[in-house]
């Protein structure tokens, strides 16, 4: 034998053996990892405990009048652990005992499946020995309370295996009311105040020990123990007034439904402070209903004629024109820079005063005056707009405020038509809130406030921080200009585009209509989509609220004028707010009836005397006896208490008697009483002095 060969085959044999062993190890490893992997991983999970975050309770958003606008309420997911010991002792007696009634109650409460369906679900899960079986998701606190008293479940977690996992959701009790402004607080998507004040509302999360089971789901070891207690968020008090918000929203919605408008917004500001008292945003959904789907109030668009106030302010402040200057509005059309300016309403006038041109909402007049006075020095006009804050956001404490756009000379879109069109609210973008804030400044004697939505931060009802009104611009123009502007705005409602609207209104309104044709994407202005608006304040002589209504109509809408679409909404809001503050209601002079001067009261003498004494009614007692019937009346002398003879043979006068006394007298005389009304006797069917027949009926009228 060759020794070399002998060694070689042994080496080969060993090598093959090693390869087989290696392959087996790799194979087994693969098998454990891939084939059995899920089983082993879940087993590993179930043996672990970890610290999980517990969400802190989010603060509540209150309205100015203390109503909850958005608050956190719990929502529960109900799981069942069918592995708990008590469900299996005695051959599962407890489970079998309760399963029928439990199924019945579940079906009765949720009405989503029949009792039999529930029963088979329970039975199946029990058979599979499920440890964390999802029974029901997202049930309310109400339903949770009921479930706790269901058969089996009322035995508690450790006996029934029922596990309730609590989650916090946001509840808006008023549902859609100011929904966009209050906002959403979903984990990945927050808008409105919920977003702006998230850091205040959120609080600090706590920590809790949980046992991880299959699928990485954490089951709390004990529902009520925390490693670190979550710290709840603070509450915020918004400036929104539920009543005003409701009024604004309803008025807006009514008009929008009527006109099938695309979207609209209504804002109400408190003049003195700039507080936003209401902010309604409605957009038409695909189903034709209206929803708070976007914050239109803070989204810039071409404002149209409501912007003429800014133009007037500039012209008056620079003393370029006076209210009584004449301006030729050329019958409502004017060619400039190769384009034509049209007045939206056909007035047929040509020479009018500046004030009346404003009242008629003449685009021609505004364009002409702006071209005449500012085309040489456009920055002078732009600087006025800057001074009014029109080129910048208002800084309201609401996220998502769109930036306005005001072209400046040198911009690639600046041209000869920029200034004339800007003068009547085109070729620029400002938000309804900005426009409202400008009107508010005029109402507030030139002081421009920063509009705001949150007035205080509270914790458990204790005030932490109060947010004060903030002045943005102490004086946007001179007092003289201010007076002229006010006259113009009041003129619009007295002899301008809004005259018919406010006819007979018991308070004075100052405002401006706006009707703007707006471009619709590629189709340009062909679709005839009009944006109707109305901005103003009331009562004009002592402004309390500023309100703006902007409605974007559907294409080719039949009614589109500012005074006909946005105006009525404004009026309804103004009417309701005005009538709600009765302090300002007009005093109706009513001739008083001297009721207390003509009176007859009759009754048992001691009672009458006692009442008169109590009321401090001076009276003179002229009666003779203590125990008798008496009358007190205005004649012949006021406050004379005299005895009134009541016998049982002839009918006494019952005038002035109360019900109890008349029953006593009549029934003791044997009469049957049929009385109507309340108060004291005004008429009797049997005249005084007539003889009484026992059993006779007597009709009495009380008043």
């Amino acid at each position, binding site marked *: 034998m060759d020794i070399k060969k002998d060694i070689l085959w042994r080496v080969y044999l060993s090598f093959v053996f090693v390869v087989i062993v290696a392959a087996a190890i790799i194979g087994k490893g693969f098998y454990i990892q891939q084939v059995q992997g899920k089983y082993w991983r879940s087993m590993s999970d179930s043996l672990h405990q970890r610290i999980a975050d517990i969400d802190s309770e989010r603060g509540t958003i209150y309205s100015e009048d203390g*109503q*909850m606008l958005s*608050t*956190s*309420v*719990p929502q529960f997911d109900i799981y069942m652990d069918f592995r708990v010991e008590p469900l299996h002792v005695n051959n599962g007696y407890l489970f079998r005992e309760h399963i029928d009634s439990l199924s019945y109650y579940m079906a009765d409460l949720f009405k989503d499946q029949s009792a039999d369906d529930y029963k088979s679900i329970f039975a199946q899960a029990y058979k599979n020995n499920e440890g964390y079986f999802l029974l029901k998701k997202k049930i*309310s*606190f*109400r339903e949770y*309370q009921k479930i706790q008293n269901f058969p089996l479940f009322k035995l508690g977690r450790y006996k029934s295996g029922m596990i309730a996992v609590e989650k916090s959701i946001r*509840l808006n*009790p*008023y*549902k859609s*009311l100011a929904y966009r402004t209050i906002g959403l607080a979903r984990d990945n998507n927050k808008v409105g105040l919920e977003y702006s004040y998230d850091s205040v509302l959120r609080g600090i999360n706590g920590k809790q020990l949980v046992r991880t089971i299959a699928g990485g789901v954490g089951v709390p070891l004990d529902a*009520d123990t925390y490693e670190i207690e979550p710290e709840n968020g603070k509450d915020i008090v918004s400036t929104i007034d539920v*009543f005003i918000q*409701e*009024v604004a929203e*309803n008025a807006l919605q009514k008009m929008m439904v009527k006109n099938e408008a695309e979207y609209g917004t209504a804002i109400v500001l408190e003049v003195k402070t700039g507080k936003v008292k209401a902010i309604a945003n409605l957009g038409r959904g695909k189903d034709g209903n209206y929803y708070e789907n976007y914050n239109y109030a803070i989204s810039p668009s071409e404002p149209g004629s409501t912007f003429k106030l800014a133009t007037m302010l500039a012209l008056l402040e620079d003393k370029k024109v006076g209210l009584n200057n004449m301006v030729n509005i050329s019958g409502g059309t004017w060619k400039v820079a190769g384009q034509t300016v049209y007045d939206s309403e056909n007035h047929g006038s040509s020479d009018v005063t500046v004030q009346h041109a404003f009242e008629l909402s003449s685009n021609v007049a505004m364009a002409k005056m702006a071209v005449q006075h500012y085309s040489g020095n456009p920055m002078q006009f732009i600087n006025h707009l800057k001074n009014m804050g029109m080129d910048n956001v208002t800084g309201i404490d609401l996220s998502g405020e769109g930036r306005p756009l005001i072209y400046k000379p040198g911009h690639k879109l600046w041209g000869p038509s920029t200034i004339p069109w800007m003068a009547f609210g085109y070729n620029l973008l400002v938000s309804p809130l900005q426009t409202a804030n400008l009107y508010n400044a005029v109402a507030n004697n030139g002081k421009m406030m920063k509009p705001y939505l949150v007035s205080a931060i509270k914790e458990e009802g204790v005030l932490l921080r109060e947010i004060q009104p903030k002045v943005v611009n102490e004086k946007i123009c001179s007092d003289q200009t201010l007076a002229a502007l006010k006259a113009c705005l009041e003129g619009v409602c007295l002899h301008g585009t809004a005259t018919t609207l406010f006819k007979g209104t*018991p308070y004075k309104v100052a405002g401006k209509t706006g009707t703007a044709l707006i471009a619709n994407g590629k189709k340009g202005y062909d679709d005839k989509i009009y944006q109707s608006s109305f901005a103003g304040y009331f009562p004009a002589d002592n402004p309390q609220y500023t309100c703006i209504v902007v409605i974007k109509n559907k294409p080719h809408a039949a009614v589109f004028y500012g005074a006909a679409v946005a105006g009525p909404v404004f009026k309804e809001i103004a*009417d309701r707010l*005005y*009538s709600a503050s*009765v302090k300002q*209601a*007009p*005093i*109706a*002079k*009513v*001739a*008083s009836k*001297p009721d*207390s*001067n003509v009176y007859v009261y009759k009754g048992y003498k001691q009672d009458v005397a006692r009442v008169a004494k109590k009321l401090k*009614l*001076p009276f003179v007692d002229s009666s003779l006896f203590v125990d008798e019937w008496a009358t007190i009346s*205005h004649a012949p002398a*006021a*406050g004379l208490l005299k005895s009134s003879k009541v016998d049982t043979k002839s009918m006494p006068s019952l005038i002035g008697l109360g019900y109890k006394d008349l029953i006593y007298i009549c029934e003791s005389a044997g009469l049957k009483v049929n009385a109507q009304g309340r108060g004291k006797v005004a008429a009797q069917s049997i005249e005084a002095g007539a003889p009484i027949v026992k059993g006779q009926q007597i009709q009495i009228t009380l008043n």
Partner: protein
Amino acid sequence: MADRAIRNINTTTKQLKELQFEYKTIKGEVMFKSEENQIIKATEPLGLKVAKELPQRLQVEKTTTTSK
């Protein structure tokens, strides 16, 4: 003693929380029902409508005759 106090605190906290939830739930329902729109809907069958006219303020003229 301390144990009992802790246990008491726990149960009371739990009770307080549940009562808060109950309060919020009920308050929310009441608020929704008292919303103007809802009231209008609820009172429609009764024939009630929102008043369109402004309320009147009455002022009684001062009269000279008073009872003595």
